[in-house]
């Protein structure tokens, strides 16, 4: 049975009609056409579907719609107002990726890490980035350049 879910997505108020248990991921992709958030596993173990819910990185694939009513969701499409987020610019500068399928989820996680470190007036170490990306999988082996790019983004 469909229900109406009111929430904010990338700064805009939205009403989404779908069953209560529908994962946020599929509501974003299906109902709103925001395909930048990607399906990887459906159980929150690969990180490809990471978005922000009230600013906190969250696996959208196992977050039911009822739990995000009234909340503020940010996807990779809405991460930056004008121009790319510093993490995205750094990933492009470092050509940090191969297939790129994992990257939008990594961008959301890393942007939160970098924003938080910069708010504290400090930069991230490689080990902090490794630990921060613990829940994200990359199969192509682009890890090294992804880590270096995120550290660089935190230093700028």
């Amino acid at each position, binding site marked *: 049975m469909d229900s109406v879910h009111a929430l904010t997505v990338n700064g805009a108020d939205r009403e989404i009609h779908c069953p209560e248990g529908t994962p946020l991921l599929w509501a974003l992709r299906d109902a709103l056409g925001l395909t930048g958030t*990607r399906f*990887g*596993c459906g159980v929150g173990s*690969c990180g490809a579907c990471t978005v922000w819910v009230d600013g906190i990185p969250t696996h959208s694939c196992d977050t039911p719609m009822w739990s995000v009513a009234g909340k503020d969701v940010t996807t990779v499409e809405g991460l930056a107002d004008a121009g790319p987020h510093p993490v995205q610019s750094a990933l492009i500068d470092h050509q940090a990726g191969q297939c790129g399928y994992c*990257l939008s989820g990594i961008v959301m996680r890393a942007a939160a890490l970098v924003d938080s470190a910069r708010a504290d007036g400090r930069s991230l170490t490689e080990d902090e980035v490794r630990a921060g990306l613990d829940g994200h*999988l990359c199969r192509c*082996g682009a890890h090294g350049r992804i880590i270096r790019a995120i550290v660089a983004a935190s230093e700028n």
Partner: protein
Amino acid sequence: MAPPGNPSLLTNPRLARWLTFEDDGGVVVRTGKSELGQGIDTALIQVVSDALAVSPDRVRLAAPDTSAGPDEGFTAGSLSVQQSAGALLAAASHARSLFAAAAEDRIGPVSDVVDGTFVGAASSLTYWDLRPDVDLDVDVPLEAHAHVRDSLVGTNVPRVDLADKILGRPRFLQDMRVAGMAFGRVIRPPYRGARLEDVDAAAVAREAGVLAVVEDGSVLGVVAESEILAREAADRLRASARWSGEPPTLDDSQVVAFLTGVDAETTVLADGPAVAAPALAARYTRPFLAHASIGPACAMAVDRPDGLVVWSHTQGVFPLRRDIARALGRDEADVEVRHVEGAGCYGHNPADDAAYDAALLAVRVPGRPVHVTWTREDEMGWAPFGPAMVIDIAAATDTTGRITAWSWDGYGNGHSSRPSTLPTPSLLAYGAQSGGTAIPPSQDPPQTAGAGTGRNAIPGYDVGPVRARAHRALEMPMRASALRSLGAHMNVFAIESHLDDLARMHAADPLEYRLRHLDDPRGRAVLERAAQSADWGRALPDSRGRGVGYARYKGTGAWCAVIAEVEAVDAIRVMGLWIAVDCGRVISPDGVANQIEGGAIQSLSWTLKERVRFADGAVTSNTWEEYPILTFAEVPPVHVSVIDRPDRPWLGAGEASMGPTAAAVGNALVDAIGVRVRDLPITPEAIVAAME
């Protein structure tokens, strides 16, 4: 630098098949090789841009498409640079010479070509001005072409696809949305060999938003108006389905006995004598390995009155078209396959199976494009797997330690069951359909194409007479097919482990021992470069060790040496990799480094962690929890040195580091704690087992 006999050019000689000059001042370049995340599109643009002397932003690369592009077989074997870049260099330089001649007819001698403009003494003309004068419907000559001035080749050009992926823009087939599209799912049986007895299809078919329920033999599928509805309908069909038939009894712990005991076809790769009195004889094994892409397989298809169109992240649009046509009983001319990028591809993954799922479902809802996304569990449970392998090696030495005879026996399934290469269609659902046939046993590519089980089976060293026999098992415990580097990962691991043990037996330094047996100057150069970069010989703390691995991929491809440093306390931890590679003339140094590093990290993951597990006909390692791969915390620093050889032919780099990395880690473990693990993966349990 297209050598005579470039297979892509032989199959597709017409110039207009490769490139055309468009009304908007651009050049459309067509390739048959798929962008898989390896960066081939950008490399091809660099080559064409230089060959035509046009700026790269004028060059648009069209994805492989059976209706318009060249048939280049599969995107496989680290051959895309050799084949597609070679063919495009020949095609583009021939086009340039035709246009240059046309320009000279009109404006006299041409002194230069600047971003597509032929500069004469008094006036200039562009490729686009000259289009009426030049017929591109001509054959590209097969002879070698004049050297083109390098401008972009040899430099780092940012990937044309990567920014979109980082910015979250639609780029993948998974993201494709078109008017009127529907979403489909095929429900896989609970175990191999299960027959569909009964399902409450009518109840699901009546649900709102469900467009069709498909029952065809043991194929069960559904098409619905949205992804969410398709998922839910599939869950209900799965819940009500009853299956029959006895599951297979073999489990993953019995694979070695199975592969060495079952009927096999033996191919002699080298016919030396048996090794009479080996100094060392040992067996090496690896389990089945999963592709385990981060994005599950995906496809879209629409059945229109004028034919079936399929969008797929396949490695070969033409071979896939042949098998879809065979399976559906249609003419190939009535099927079109277009490539769209998917998540990373490391061999024959379920892209083709998903394409057939979409085709089968689309036929039931004519006119509606049907988009299919596999589940994570199906991706890990029903894909073709990289074959398990059993390798027996024996070697003899003289009193100085010099190797005097060598033998290799490889047991396992063939390394390819790709579409159109088998007697019947190699598409998962076809095997379960009414009137379909089970997928035949996988085959090995011929030795001239680099072999499969026997890939890199013959050492690149001087080891005296070599005996090498590949025993291809004629039954598959699990569906087997191509995984990055085919047999080379395991063969190089086995050969280099064996060599290392022989070096130790003769108290020789493993690096010096290799150089003693290696004449090939480019092989020696990568070993020496890697050793220098790793500071080979530097003392290491207790419980740390260093190891080396080396091979020339396929014996005809890139040379690669890897040095690994490991720490073994509670678990084995790789502290760093130092790699040197020579893949001839380099198109993109950063592209080569990225491929070599990515290959090394993926090989570390296979070698240290991965094993497909199955029992009672079902794969139990079908989640990331049950099939863990290397994590961000476990990935070591990797140092890649690329040796550029601007005067040598370019070679692919995607698979060269797989074998040497596996070997280097195994050898480093021996250096650290004196334990030789011969059965992959090298887990803490395997180390304990090897000590007993």
